[in-house]
């Protein structure tokens, strides 16, 4: 069962979510930080604005369902502890730069000889081998090299990324998929294997076949900001924006008709729009003046209403329109509330209670949800190292040496 999967998480922020997914699925996940804590991963902003690594909100958000220990695997004493941990580990998750473990004498060949059942999942920007495997990259660089940035942003400004590190979010479930596949293979073979995840390659998945679709085009398509192709996709409203694809095709016709009916009801439809032929509507070939006239009419309707009015109207009329929710609107979204997506976790030492997304799916046979809050620095050192068979004196010695 998944609860018997012992996972050692040696990831930096790029892999936090992968360990969380495994933990939220019920696996036993031990997060390893350097002594003193992973200060880069425990980054701002902090709960209540108080600069304290224990209050890092990114850390609290992405490390649930993990126990936490501190360990410096670089000195030989630390290496020895790591190897004892690996003895009792099914899955090693790490984000080490290619070559790091090799330099510690723990390359994959050695590791597999010593721990034949171990699954190692490595998450790196470009993969373990190859001409770019040594390149330095963080989210922005990955999104650039992965193709998505070239298509995202306004045409008169540089390409942009999403303001949170989404390349890590795309790679995390894929890394977990690779881990589960390797565990499935182990059921038959008895042997573990290396899962070599490339953040860049995971980014390509966001293009949904884009490189192949446009391979024979004379020029790659360009980013269009609020537009997709020739038509507007994001529209200003009185208080924000909505997504509404002014696109053609059979799947869109009834929604476009319903929108015009709503505009007629609201006395906001110019006469020429009343019986517009949406069946024949083809943005790719539409006359530019005609397109501008259409967008002006729809835009005037949208900008006079709030996001909420538009979304509620869209729900009632089956129009393909959605609010561009900010964080608060996500938390207040009625449907998500109804499915009880959010759960409150208490942080008594801070006098705080924080809502977290509780699950990524509902299943009748899998238990998916947050098992415990993210660990404090070294919170489970005693528990984990005692279970490993270390005596109190040994633990104290390792603490004194700065190893744990």
């Amino acid at each position, binding site marked *: 069962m998944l609860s018997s999967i012992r996972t050692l998480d040696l990831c930096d922020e790029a892999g936090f979510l992968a360990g969380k997914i495994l933990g939220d699925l019920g696996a036993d996940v031990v997060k390893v930080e350097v002594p003193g804590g992973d200060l880069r991963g425990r980054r701002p902003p902090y709960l209540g604005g108080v600069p304290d690594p224990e209050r890092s909100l990114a850390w609290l*958000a992405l490390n649930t369902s993990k126990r936490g220990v501190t360990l410096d695997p670089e000195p030989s004493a630390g290496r020895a502890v790591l190897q004892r941990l690996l003895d009792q580990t099914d899955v090693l998750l790490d984000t080490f730069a290619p070559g790091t473990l090799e330099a510690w004498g723990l390359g994959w060949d050695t590791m597999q000889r010593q721990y034949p059942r171990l699954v190692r999942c490595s998450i790196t920007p470009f993969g373990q081998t190859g001409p770019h495997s040594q390149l330095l990259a963080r989210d922005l660089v990955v999104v650039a090299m992965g193709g998505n940035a070239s298509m995202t942003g306004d045409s008169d400004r540089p390409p942009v990324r*999403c303001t949170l590190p989404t390349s890590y979010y795309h790679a995390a479930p894929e890394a977990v998929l690779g881990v589960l*596949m390797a565990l499935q293979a182990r059921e038959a073979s008895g042997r573990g294997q290396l899962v070599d995840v490339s953040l860049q390659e995971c980014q390509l998945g966001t293009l949904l076949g884009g490189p192949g679709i446009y391979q024979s085009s004379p020029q790659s398509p360009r980013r269009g900001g609020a537009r997709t192709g020739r038509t507007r996709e994001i529209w200003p409203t009185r208080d924000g924006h909505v997504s509404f694809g002014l696109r053609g095709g059979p799947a869109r016709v009834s*929604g476009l008709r319903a929108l015009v009916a709503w505009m007629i009801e609201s006395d906001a439809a110019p006469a020429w729009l009343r019986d517009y032929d949406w069946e024949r509507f083809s943005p790719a070939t539409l006359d530019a003046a005609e397109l501008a006239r259409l967008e002006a009419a729809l835009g005037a309707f949208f900008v006079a209403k709030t996001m909420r009015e538009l979304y509620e109207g869209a729900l009632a009329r089956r129009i393909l329109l959605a609010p561009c929710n900010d964080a608060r609107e996500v938390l207040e979204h009625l449907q998500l509330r109804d499915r009880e997506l959010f759960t409150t976790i208490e942080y008594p030492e801070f006098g*705080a209670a924080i809502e977290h997304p509780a699950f990524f799916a509902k299943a009748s046979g899998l238990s998916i949800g947050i098992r415990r809050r993210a660990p404090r620095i070294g919170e489970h050192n005693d528990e984990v190292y005692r279970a490993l068979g270390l005596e109190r004196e040994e633990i104290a010695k390792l603490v004194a040496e700065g190893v744990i």
Partner: protein
Amino acid sequence: MGESGVYAGLRILELGAGAAGPAATRYFAEQGATVIRVESSVRPDFLRLLHARPGEAVDLDAAPMFALLNPDKWSVSIDLRKPAGVELVLRLADWADVVAQNFAPGAMDKLGLGPAQLLARKPALIVVTSALFGQTGPQRHYPGFGGQGSAIAGFNHLTGWPDRESIGPYATITDSLSPRYVALLIAAALLERSRGAGGQHIDVAQIETGVYSLSELVVRCSANGESVARAGNREEGAAPHGVYPCAGDDAWIAIAVASDDEWQALVAAMGAPTWAREPRFATAAGRVAHQDDLDARLAAWTHKSGAYLLMAQLQEAGVPAGVVQHLNELLQDPQLAHRRHFVPLDHAVLGVLPYERSGFRLSASPGGFDDSGPLLGEDNDKVLGEILGLSPAEIEQLLVDDVIA
């Protein structure tokens, strides 16, 4: 990929359309599973229509996106409006280990093919349903595509410039994010099953996979009342952190400096110009405080160089930097070539297209793709004859009755 895959022998029945469903089962096809897609010409998958132009005859087999998202899958064309068609699908469910659905909630239930009905018939099945909002809740029938999913989950609001409208990350993020979760859930259920567990229904709401991934957004709002705002390419506490122009048409480089050491490396790579040695740029706090000026000066330097040469130069110096690659440039990327990310496969109508591997490689289970995306109904005889054991005469009758359509 035949016998070498992790899932050789696994049987997946797919009732779905678009990108979000088929992208999930593709991971299993890549590892040897047999994936049968039930489709029809009477209600074709809209991806088979994306290339169509009004007033022109539509060739359902000429859609690149459909082909690219469905390599190594089998296609059987069955009209689900006919009771005999539904009966065929039930028999295929008897054959299957996994049934993956991504039609609107309730649509399959009306036909007697919903999760509860399938599980009642075959309790060992793993049935996964993927829908924008899931199978329950007041807005479950809300119709939409990934574009709306991305907006509702919060991705759009987070993407763009602070002084401009929110825009979506390219393509439809929940369409590419949710299939990864669907796939890992299938893999988890299969692993449990191989250790003795039974079948189950897994209810995936695509938007929820997005919100879950954006846990930091939710937690920051709940804890501090903060609504994370879109910030172009900037990152709190780091500078320079942006995308800068290079020589050439729409050529750009991303530079993400996160430490003083990396800044010093960048200064050295620029030849230590006077402006870069100003004390106000020496610390992260100073660089962040003078970011507009810093970005302008850096851009004035980057725009003289070609993007790829500049990336090599900066990386050599120890600065995280990468070219903003256009879609066609990805096809030439040496690292992706090294990982054999693109698999060229011939398609009867579209010719050779670059089919894409997943984002990971398994050292002992290489996997891969052998066949391009299927033509509509390409595998009818194999599925109806070999799998369901129908005689040529029975298949002929189904054709006459337009059940195979």
